[in-house]
């Protein structure tokens, strides 16, 4: 394939804070799985993750109603546990979420819907959260669908 590893040419930038943006849906793309493995490795390497931002079809990761077969990884649950245990903010983009039927209690009331289905600790907020990550110098990594 591929040339050999190049020698180190200068000191790595101290990019110690990550924001992960997930745009691929669970059970449709591999994006949430890859992102979760990456996130665990990042914490193990003493990096900080300031925020996980769900955008586009990625908002389905915040569903509280996903019930995959018992012999498959429950990705929504695994992400919820990971974020809670590590005190990491999980944010679903409000515009993506409302279109795709993902709502918290306050949006449920505002739009007079019959239920809410946002899984804790995810919250719903605007793209300003993503802009904040971009502007404050976090290393923003995207996990898109692969097909």
């Amino acid at each position, binding site marked *: 394939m591929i040339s050999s590893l190049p020698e180190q040419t200068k000191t790595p930038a101290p990019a110690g804070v990550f924001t992960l943006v997930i745009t691929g849906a669970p*059970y*449709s*793309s*591999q994006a949430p*799985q890859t992102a979760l493995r990456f996130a665990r490795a990042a914490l193990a390497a003493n990096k900080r993750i300031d925020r996980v931002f769900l955008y586009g079809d990625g908002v389905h990761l915040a569903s509280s109603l996903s019930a995959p077969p018992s*012999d*498959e*990884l429950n990705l929504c649950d695994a992400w919820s546990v990971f974020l809670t245990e590590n005190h990491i903010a999980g944010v679903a983009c409000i515009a993506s979420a409302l279109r795709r039927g993902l709502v918290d209690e306050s949006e449920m009331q505002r739009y007079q819907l019959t239920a809410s289905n946002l899984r804790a600790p995810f919250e719903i907020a605007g793209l300003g959260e993503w802009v904040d990550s971009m502007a404050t110098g976090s290393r923003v990594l995207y996990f898109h*669908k*692969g*097909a």
Partner: protein
Amino acid sequence: MSTLIIIDQPPYGSWEGREALDMAFSLAAFDQPVSLLFCGAGVNWLRKGQDAAEVQQKSIERNLAAAPVFGVEALLADRSACDQYGLDDAALLDHVTITDLGKELTGRFDHVAFAG
């Protein structure tokens, strides 16, 4: 009523291939004739030696091996796609027949469908 289900998406990166398999197995379960055609990057479903533990998914190698038992009539693979991905007879799972996606193949079935 014979059906060809086509899988052109590669394994593990999306659920489309799995959901196509479910369609084929459902037809077979109701005694409807069905074959599977793998083409494009989809032929990579047919490579021996897949180990999906580290991506935390189930391997479908066992499902595909059992396809004839479940009543799937043929596992077909597009020749040009196999060539592009370096899949020769030694690298392919058993029971795979190499063929050519084209009008002659699709014309042999009453229904031709994708899962997504």
